[in-house]
């Protein structure tokens, strides 16, 4: 029988912790990737990021990340006066930020390929050693 924290036989809390860790890493990549392509108005960037499936962060959580990236010199900002309210802040990745984004993206792609490759390896091992569990 499953405990209240257990759904479909696994711990929900554990899954949520894992997604938090996952999002943290991927969010940096998403931000740098977006800002490598062009300059973004902060509000629009946040809206675009929260719309990415699976990112699932609160809008207010992105600003601390952006501040950290700016402090690290990966992102630059500029202000533009607005007649309709506070000055608008625009973000753009620096050269270092773009280089890091490319490297992160390559690493992420490699990792995805690795994960996909791992499945094939598991299947091959099952064929080589009869008696082990089939993959499906």
């Amino acid at each position: 029988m499953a405990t209240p924290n257990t759904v479909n036989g696994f711990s929900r809390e554990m899954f949520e912790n894992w997604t938090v860790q996952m999002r943290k890493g991927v969010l940096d990549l998403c931000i740098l990737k977006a800002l490598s392509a062009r300059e973004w108005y902060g509000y629009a960037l946040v809206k675009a990021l929260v719309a990415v499936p699976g990112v699932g962060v609160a809008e207010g959580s992105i600003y601390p990340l952006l501040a950290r990236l700016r402090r690290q010199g990966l992102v630059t900002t500029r202000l533009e006066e607005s007649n309709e309210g506070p000055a608008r802040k625009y973000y753009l990745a620096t050269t270092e930020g773009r280089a890091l984004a490319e490297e992160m993206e390559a690493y992420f792609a490699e990792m995805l390929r690795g994960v996909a490759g791992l499945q094939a390896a598991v299947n091959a091992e099952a064929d080589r050693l009869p008696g082990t569990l089939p993959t499906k």
Partner: protein
Amino acid sequence: MKNWTTQAEQRLTEYLAERATREGFTGEDAVELKEDLRRHIHEESQQLPAETISLMQLEQLLGKLDAGYRPAVPASDSRPARLPLRWRFWSWTAGVVLPLAVLLFEAITRFCGGVFFDPVPTWWHILLVAMVPGLNVWLLRSRPGTPSRWSGLAAGFSLGVSLFYGALFLPIVHLSLFALLAFGIGFLSLIPILAAIQSWWIGRSKLLETSEPTRFRHARRWGLAAAGLALLALEGPGLWTRVNLQLALTEHQTPSAALTRLRWFHSESSLLKACYEGNRGTSMATDIPGWMLRSWQFPAAALGLNRLQTADSQRVRELFFRVTGKPFNSLPPPSTRLGTGMMGRIDPLAEDFEFDSHTGGDSVAVRIKQLDLTESRFDGHLYGDARLGYGEWTLVFANGGRVAREARCQIQLPVDGRVSRLTLWVNGEPQEAAFSTVAKVKAAYREIAVVQQRDPVLVTMVAPDTVMVQCFPVPTAGTMKIRLGITAPLTGASWDLPRIIERNFGIPATLEHAVWLQGNRSFSLTAETDSQSSTPDGPAHSLSAAIHRDGFLTDPLVWSATGLSPTPESVWCEDSHATPDERFLIREPIAATPPAATTPPIVVIDGSAAMAAIKDRILEALPAGQSILLLADDTARKITREELSKVRFSGGRDNEPALREAIRLAKAAGGGPIVWLHGPQPVPLAQPEALLQLLERGSNLPSIGECALAPGPNRLMETIYRSGILHRLDRLDNGALSQGRSTRQAWKWRRAASADGLPGKQVSDHLARLWAIEQVESNHAPDTAAARSAIGARYQLVTPLSGAVVLETREQYDRHGLTQGDPSASPQVPPIPEPSSAMLILITLTAALARRRRAA
């Protein structure tokens, strides 16, 4: 844009502060995060249909923004979060109360201004400094909803001003700390530094709590810029002047680049202030720009790296003239503050530090505060038949200071005029002067005035038709009254009233120079723009006028006889100083002869700023011939008439090189005439010996006709006038410039033992003084200098060889071998009708009667 309720605004501010803390952000990072979140919420709020964002709408927005958001517990107190008590105490104490208190203290006592520098020399400075506590009060009392642009602007301005003043006091912070620890005093100079720190802290607090940090920071930058601009406007000209003055004092080429820059732009008040600092004269503290350049010496001296240095006052005063074209003492001394009211009157320190090191000296030097000419009266009599005038100038000096002062001035006399009477009032009684050699009268004055601190007055001649008057002491809170009698011939039909060309005392703007003129024929008094004619007064004519201060200081006042015959007649007088066989002195005119053709004069034109207004007159008066024109612009530059019309006169120019060059050229040409058109030359010569050598050596000595076209002292003239080659041109006209000298009536003098059969009329015995002046000053007189000096003393004349001094007691006169003048024998302005005229009428009537009897 949506409207926000106060509660919503306040709640947002609280949320943002809490969120920044939750994220672990502090300082600028916290400010930036709050700003980003606020911007986001603002964008979100724009999507809402409601026109006003209330607390409820805000809570919805925050819930969407923040996954971990918990609505706020309703606050019981709607007031904004306040600073901790101890910070509030320090903010109010160091940011408001102490700066205000020290400003008031300095404004009243001028404590710092009397010792180091004047931090608030004008009302603008006081306003600027008062804005620091004022703006800090406003910032401390403002609510979080205050528009960020205003609070940022205020914080920036307050920070800018307080940083500037804090930095000014940093160089003496070690002295303050030492005094504070050792004696318990010295806190005052630390207050601006504390105020600067506190202003920064108050601004930072407002930044952390503001709803628009970007706007706040932007406005703060504008506030800082505004403070910088205000300080630049107040201190920029002074700083520019001080920096270039410093460079000019160290540069040795002439003219220096710094001097050229200063002539282009300078702050006259800053230059003048510098004239009263340094190693001579007074020891007044400096101004803010002066302090900015000098204050580094304090920490450097404390570290043993340097010694405190003071500028050479003489050089600074020379540069003042070189830059402005004006003698430094032609302007009132720099006021300690604003002149009137509490801040002007209470000046307890400055005066005590003011030291006049020139008492009893040969120069007029620094202007003394609170020493003024308070009364001025001139009484004159025109002797038309004798073609001479006599005037008495009564001057009353008042000293409002705490120490006795010496009043000094140079007075320019009428052309060929000499002082023939000197009176000092001692204990209300007029005392006449003793006339003797210059050395004797100077020695007596120095001993009595400077050593014994008693009452004398001294008059000596320092330049052509120019005397130096020294009176000491003008007592504390008292007055000193003197009278100068002046005898001078008419030049043509005119007699220039004497005027002060250099002084160490002030003349109140309200002072009126009371003029009374009389004569046995009609006359007029002409100023630059005005003219007044005499009116009949009994058997004579008189005129009364009240001349405004500026009128008698700058404009020449010319007293002119009307209806004089163009051909003068012989006259005679009884000379009481002569031996019986030469008792009667006769003056006969020598018929004018056409001037001999001479080489055209070399014309030296002063390039100083004072000459700019007279350029057109000079061009008109210049002869059309082949005169050599030399522009005295610190060098000797040959120019043409066309070039002269384009010359831009600026600053004060050294005329010595041009004059030296002119003398060389004139000598080479066989001793032709030189005409020197000039303004003041109030600074000492660079190479006086080189000039004197040219005048003392060789045979082809030129004659120099000088014409002062702007009033002021002239050290160059003082140096060369004793050589005898310098003479005064009475007017700037074509004739004088063509000849190099004024065309004056020449006279023949002779003497007789009896009055029988003498030609012409008997006139005033002033005629004998004119003869004596010629005898004393003529280079061709056969007498020795001692004999000529004795003539000057006997006829009671101040000449290059004789002076006048009034002492206090007979014992003082005896001790110095001087004989006090007899009041009954001293010249005076006669009552109307004058005795001589009445006597003339009587003699004429008697002679007519005697002739009728003989004929009968």
